[in-house]
């Protein structure tokens, strides 16, 4: 392996300073980064280990009704926090549908959001990839691309963002707290990831040294707790990324949808908020027809980037189903097969 420096800063400020140098990257659980390094995809000069920083592993309920999740909280701890799961069930369900139990035990909140695409051409260092090496070209564009993006892609990059967790978070207007060289700032999660455009190598709004310290869900996010689901179609029941997924959350008052939230996963370079679909669901009854209309709106502008036209139709159907499931109400317990279309099938014993 390429030699690298390893530093373990004592404070967030030291971490930011250490990571601001060229060639430096943050290391949290490393569930993605270490694989990238072993494969020669990522060859950092310096790892800045943030796992020992104090105060980043707390789940805090703030007086205003929001929740603040430290960047180092593990995926498993967050999903299994009973109060969190009750308040934000779609987020917990999404977390439990991701990766494997072992990976969830290690993987962190901040790391999950900043994980890299699973585009095979990004991982295959013999292939051209504009994300890995700016300006080198995109071998996915005419390659094996049935799982690639159908929204927001460009000729330069058709990769998707793999996170499940980010999908309900973006639907619930999550905010990302960032510590940088200029001090603390916050941005909407929707602004964290960039679409590829002509610079797919720039994946996020983060500047050198920027460290995600927390993710916050605003007070309004709790209001969807009784009608919120995450649905994920994948090629096996665990340890597989979504072909397409959706998070749907509804606030239902007097038999009508007062407010809807909808986001898609596996379709674009970022978790994809479907605001146009949300708009058509305002003040209508939660019916299949209304959800069909929302599905069409959600996929407006979608186009295949390769052998993946089916993902557009699949995404529409997933949107309808996720909304139907949300309308039916959040189940009392997260299903044994979280986010699975087979969640309701009896006999499932695996979580």
């Amino acid at each position, binding site marked *: 392996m390429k030699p690298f420096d390893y530093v373990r800063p004592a404070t967030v400020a030291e971490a930011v300073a250490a990571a601001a140098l060229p060639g430096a990257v943050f290391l949290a659980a490393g569930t993605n980064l270490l694989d990238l390094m072993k494969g020669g995809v990522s060859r950092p000069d310096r790892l800045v280990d943030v796992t020992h920083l104090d105060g980043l592993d707390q789940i805090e309920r703030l007086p205003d009704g929001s929740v603040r999740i430290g960047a180092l909280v593990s995926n498993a701890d967050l999903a299994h926090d009973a109060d969190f799961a009750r308040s934000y069930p779609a987020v917990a369900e999404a977390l439990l549908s991701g990766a494997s139990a072992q990976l969830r035990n290690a993987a962190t909140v901040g790391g999950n959001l900043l994980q890299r695409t699973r585009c095979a051409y990004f991982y295959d260092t013999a292939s051209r990839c504009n994300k890995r090496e700016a300006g080198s070209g995109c071998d996915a564009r005419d390659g094996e691309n049935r799982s690639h993006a159908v929204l927001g892609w460009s000729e330069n990059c058709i990769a998707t963002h793999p996170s499940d967790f980010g999908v309900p978070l973006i639907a619930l207007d999550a905010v990302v707290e960032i510590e940088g060289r200029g001090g603390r700032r916050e941005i909407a999660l929707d602004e964290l990831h960039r679409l590829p455009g002509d610079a797919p190598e720039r994946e996020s709004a983060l500047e050198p040294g920027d460290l995600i310290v927390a993710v916050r869900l605003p007070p309004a996010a709790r209001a969807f707790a009784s009608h919120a689901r995450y649905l994920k179609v994948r090629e096996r029941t665990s340890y597989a990324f979504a072909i397409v997924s959706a998070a749907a959350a509804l606030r239902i008052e007097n038999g009508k949808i007062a407010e809807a939230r909808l986001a898609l996963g596996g379709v674009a370079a970022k978790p994809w908020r479907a605001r146009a679909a949300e708009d058509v669901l305002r003040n209508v009854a939660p019916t299949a027809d209304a959800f069909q209309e929302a599905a069409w709106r959600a996929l407006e502008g979608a186009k295949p980037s390769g052998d993946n036209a089916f993902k557009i*139709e699949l995404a529409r159907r997933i949107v309808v*189903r996720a909304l139907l499931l949300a309308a039916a109400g959040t189940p009392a317990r997260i299903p044994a097969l979280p986010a699975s279309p*087979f969640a309701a099938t009896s006999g499932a014993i695996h979580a």
Partner: protein
Amino acid sequence: MPELNLTSAPAHLRHGSNIGQPLTRRDGVLKVTGRATYAADNHPPGMLFAVIAVSSIARGRVTSLDVAAAKRHPGVVDVMTPDHKPQLAIDPEIKTNPFVFRMDALHSKEVRYANQPIAVVIAETLEAATEGAALLAPRYETLPPLVGLDAGESFVPPVVGVGNPAESHHGDVEAGLASAEKRIDATYETPPQYHNAMEPHAIVVQWDGDRLSVDMPTQGLMLSLARIAELFGIAHDKIHIRSPFLGGGFGSKGLMGGPPVLGIMAAKLVGRPIKLVLRREQMYGPVGHRAPTRQRLRIGADAEGRLTALDHHARTVSSTFDDFYEPAADASHTLYAAPAIRTSHDAVRVNTGTPLFMRAPGEATGSITLESAIDEMAWACGMDPLAFRLKNYAEVEPMTGRPFSSKALRACYEQGAARFGWAKRSLRPRQMRDDAGLLVGWGMGTATFPALMFQAEARAAIRRDGSGVMEIGAHDMGQGAWTALAQIAADGLGLDVDRVEFKAGTSDLPDAGIAGGSAHTATAGAAIHSAGAAVIARLADLATNDERSPLFGAGNAGVIARDGRLIRRDDESRGESYSEILARAGVAEVEARGTGAPNPAAMEEYAMHAHGAVFAEVKVDPDLGQVRVTRMVGAFAAGRIVNPRMVQSQLFGGMIWGMSFALHEEAITDRRSGRIMNANLGEYHIPVNADVPPLDVITVEEHDPHVNALGIKGVGEIGITGSAGAVANAVWHATGVRVRRFPIQIEELLTQL
């Protein structure tokens, strides 16, 4: 490595003979406590690490390697390249026998497939060797690779599989099709698949002068030993291979491939012990795989649903430099009683590592298509798939007219169908739903696999203390050979299994043949059985010729061995213990050897196959097209079952491979570069636990007096056959959509649901 001793395992409760008992794995405690030593667990003093650098192109030439950069890296000791390597005694391209495959041993700069070894970096640490390999930064002269089933001009290979003719026929297929009331003509595709044993290929090598000590997982100790001997020009008795445990092989560790040879060369080059372990992605190239196929089946049936003809053609691929042809169409030889059957193969050459044996080679790829086509034919005839199969039940082997040595397939159909509840199946597809509204489908497939035998030898001894020894260089791939073969040994020696020292897994023991073809238990078991009988005969000689023995005059055939005693057949109250006999004779032990081999006369006279029937239930989301298997029942007849627990596990494993074949597994090749794009266990999808439904295995009683002395047919591979087709057929029954490309993908169903 410390001497492996499994005899101190806790005693098993036993009723009656050893064979037939569901003993737990005798190596189980070692494995779950981490004390079972796999090849890569060995670290001889002074050991260096070797890492293979592989080609990223599929066709062309390596024009440069930055050896200097690699050598400058701290910890790198040497870099082995085509220009700097020990000479082999023979050209690795020469096929000295049909079980020798051409390997890449840095003998050329030509690149013939992606992931081909092009150099080996040797270093003090794994990390240094890994970085050294990256620093080689190879440059290539690249040629357009040949990729896929239509890559070039097709040809009819001289043989398919192991020595099967590429074309076989019986009766007039065209006339049979012309006279048929109903016909189907369907083309199916199966993808390339990789063995993906949990344990990667690994070797730890130590040279001591011209003596060679090797730890490596192998399914064929003697084949590997002979190959090493000829490649390095050393005598067989200078080589010692230890392979006590394999973390799976599935055919990829049967024949010596290039990577372990490179490890041996590297150790010779630097004069120090070497460890070389393949990275997961490096297993997608130089160590074999299951080739893709495109298969066309044309079937005809008369008005009553009797087959009139079965024509099965398979297109497959081999590498540009060697020949292995997946004998997919041969799956149609044995199962259905068509008066006219033709099977044929053709192939194209592509830039791939040479395809090889992968669990049920030919049978697996051919079974999923044949069982799909039979299902399509049954539907065309308006018949229940089980009734259709019974209507066309082969009472004799259809191609040859030979009787079966035994065939309890009818009982498999009956017992499997009853357990599954098949009688409640709707004839028409898309009729069944569950409470949640998911589409439910039921499908079935017939399983079959030939009952093969190879050659093996075993050495048996009975010691003065009354205990026994059985030695055979057998292989435990995880299937339970340490246990099942010890049970056969115990019965052969007339002892409880805990009184037998069973030795296996090293090359200094008698040749057990290869652990492949589902024939290891039968072959090694036959040798063990005969060695046991031979040593008991020696012991009986001592006793029956000695006036002082209560067995005097009983004659060799007049005694039986039981519980460490020889007793008179005609008077079981008269007998004496092994130790008494040996003590009186004044000998420390008696020993004898025995062999196991196929019986050519019986093979001439009888068709020998294991059979089974698999029933599967799938559920399909009617809007989203997601498919999951929810239930499987397999009923198998495979002659004598030595250890029901191990056999059940083997059959479970096979059935899971079958569902994986139908729904999950596929190596994705970039059609431009010839590189495998999902060469890792994250993206090469095999089922996880949550995908595997409750499985039910029935072993149907079957007595076969012809296959071998023990009546064993083997269970290693049959579980895949039938299962893959059953799942595919269940998907059709659930949806009414017939998908003919495997694995069945969501997009194939989505638009047609």
